[in-house]
Every structure is written in structure tokens, then in C-alpha cells.
């Protein structure tokens, strides 16, 4: 299905300029991807912190307070 759709598309003139165009798009999207990866690492750190906070609250015998970060996360 995907192969047939790709075959129907016109061929790209990937000769001399192709490597420059590919490099520009790959670099730009790699930068964004790195940023998203950093965001994911920070998010997982916050999740761990939240989990430890909640377990601490439960360990203290109190009902867990509303998780502050949870509801605002996308």
C-alpha cells in the first residue's frame, strides 16, 4: 500500500544538490528531535519525583494530595 503510493509519486532529482537538501532537512529535524528528547528526559525525571512524593505521602498515612503536575501535563 505504502509502496504503491510511493511509486506513484514523481521521482526526485536527487543528483548533486540532493545531498545538500537532505543534509539541511535532516539537521533541522534532528535538532528538534534532540530538543524533544531532552524534554522527555526532564518529564520522566518529574514523573519519578512525583511518584516518590506520592509514595511518601501514602507512607505517612495521609491520603495523597492531588498530584500537582499530573493534571497540567499534556
Amino acid at each position: 500500500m505504502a509502496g504503491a503510493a510511493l511509486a506513484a509519486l514523481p521521482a526526485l532529482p536527487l543528483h548533486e544538490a540532493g545531498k545538500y537538501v537532505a543534509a539541511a532537512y535532516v539537521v533541522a529535524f534532528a535538532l528538534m528531535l534532540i530538543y524533544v528528547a531532552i524534554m522527555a528526559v526532564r518529564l520522566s525525571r518529574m514523573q519519578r519525583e512525583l511518584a516518590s512524593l506520592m509514595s511518601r505521602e501514602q507512607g505517612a498515612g495521609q491520603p495523597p494530595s492531588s498530584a500537582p503536575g499530573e493534571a497540567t501535563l499534556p
Partner: protein
Amino acid sequence: MNSSSPPSRSLGSGLLALSLAAAAAMALALGLVFFYAPLDAEQGFLQKIFYLHVPLAIVALCGFVLAALMAIMHLRSRDPRWDLRSYVAIHMSLIFAVATLITGSIWARGSWGHWWVWSEPTLVSFLIVFLLYATYQPLRFAIEDPERQARYASVFAITAGAFVPMNFIAVRLASAYLHPRVLGSTSNLPPQMAFTFVVSLIGVALLYATLCSCELTAKRTRAQLRAARRAAEARAGEDAGPAAHRLRSAAPSLTAHGTLAAPASRSGA
């Protein structure tokens, strides 16, 4: 946008909608760039970089100006949330500016045979703007007191933000240049190219808005989490000292109620 308001699902769904719109616009733009826009008569396939490089540059520069407007709002209202928004806008614009410089350099190599041309005013002026904003984070980090940090950073953002349009005008007045002019009477883009360019610009602008929104949400969530941890420590009767409550940082540090956090150490403030 109010961090003191009760958590709601609308923020998450709004961010999700923005992310989906950005992804759809970027996918459409890529399809148009490679399968709809005609090849340039002079540069051929190499000109496809234009649809990425120019929107990145425009969005980065607009982000810097937007940050200046937010800094004005901060100085007028003294609301630290405007400082946070200004900080995030500059932070994201710097990332987009790095992408602009790299893609522009690759395009220059393919088109002119050089990675960088120092005699070209457009390139050098953009580099100056980038280097100017690269000092923003060290400036913030150098100031320990959060209130002073926010105030000085806003003054910087306004001054540098005013420099961006001035720089743009000065470059356009330059008589000798190699870099093509995109906006203005000399740009005669065919309708198919113009349409592709506009879609690309919308896609990059939506990507910028999405990443800014993610960063803002993360910063607010971290502030709320920190406040919850402090409350838990207070209930348990622990006190790790003021330095443990807030590590020195270049980023604005809000409390869960949208006010500024205490400085890392009172001795230097």
C-alpha cells in the same frame, strides 16, 4: 496561562491540538516542497532548502521580537509569568536560529561553494543577532536574586528585541549582497512556490508555538511539583535549608502560585 488556577484538562487538550496542527502542517509542507513546488530555474533542486531555511529565520526573529513585547508586559505588570514567557520565547528562538544558521550554511555551500561568506551582510547580521541573544542565558545566570534577574533580563530582551527590526532594515539598505531577498518587491515567487512557502511558514510557526507551550507547561509543572515537595517536607518537619529549595538557575523560578521563588542564598542577594 495562569499557574495558580486549578489544574484543568483544557491545557493538555489545547497542547495536543496544537501539536497535531503543527504535525499536519509540517507534513503538508514537506509534501508540497518535494512534490508540488516547481524546481527553481537557476538553483534547481537545491532551492528546496529555501522552504525550510527562510521560515526558520522568520520565526526565530519574530520570536525575539515577541519576547521583547512579553518583557515589556513584565516590566509593566511585574508579573513573573511574563518573564517566564519571554524567557521561553528567547530560548526557543535560539534553537530555531541555530537551525537557520546551519541550514543557511549548507545552502551557501551548495550554491556559492563556501560554508560562510563574511562579506555578506545578511549572514553576518543574523550571526550578530544570534550571538547577542546567546548572552541572555549567561546574563540571567550571573544574577542571583530572582527579582533582579527577571528585571534585568526584561531590559535586555527589550533592547535586543528593538535591535532585530533595526538590523533587518539596515541589511535591506545594503547595496552589495549575494543573499536573495525574499520579502519585498524584488521577490517574484510563482504562485505554487509562494503557496508552498506560506504553508511551510505556518508549519514552522506552529512548531515553534508547540515547543514553547511544552516548555511552559514543563516549567509550571516543575514549580508545582517543587511546591508540593516543600509542603510535604514541612509536614514531616524536615528542613533542608534554603539552598536546597532553589538551585541557582538561569531559568525563571516560579512558585506554584505564579510568584517568584526565593533566591538560592540570601548571603549574596
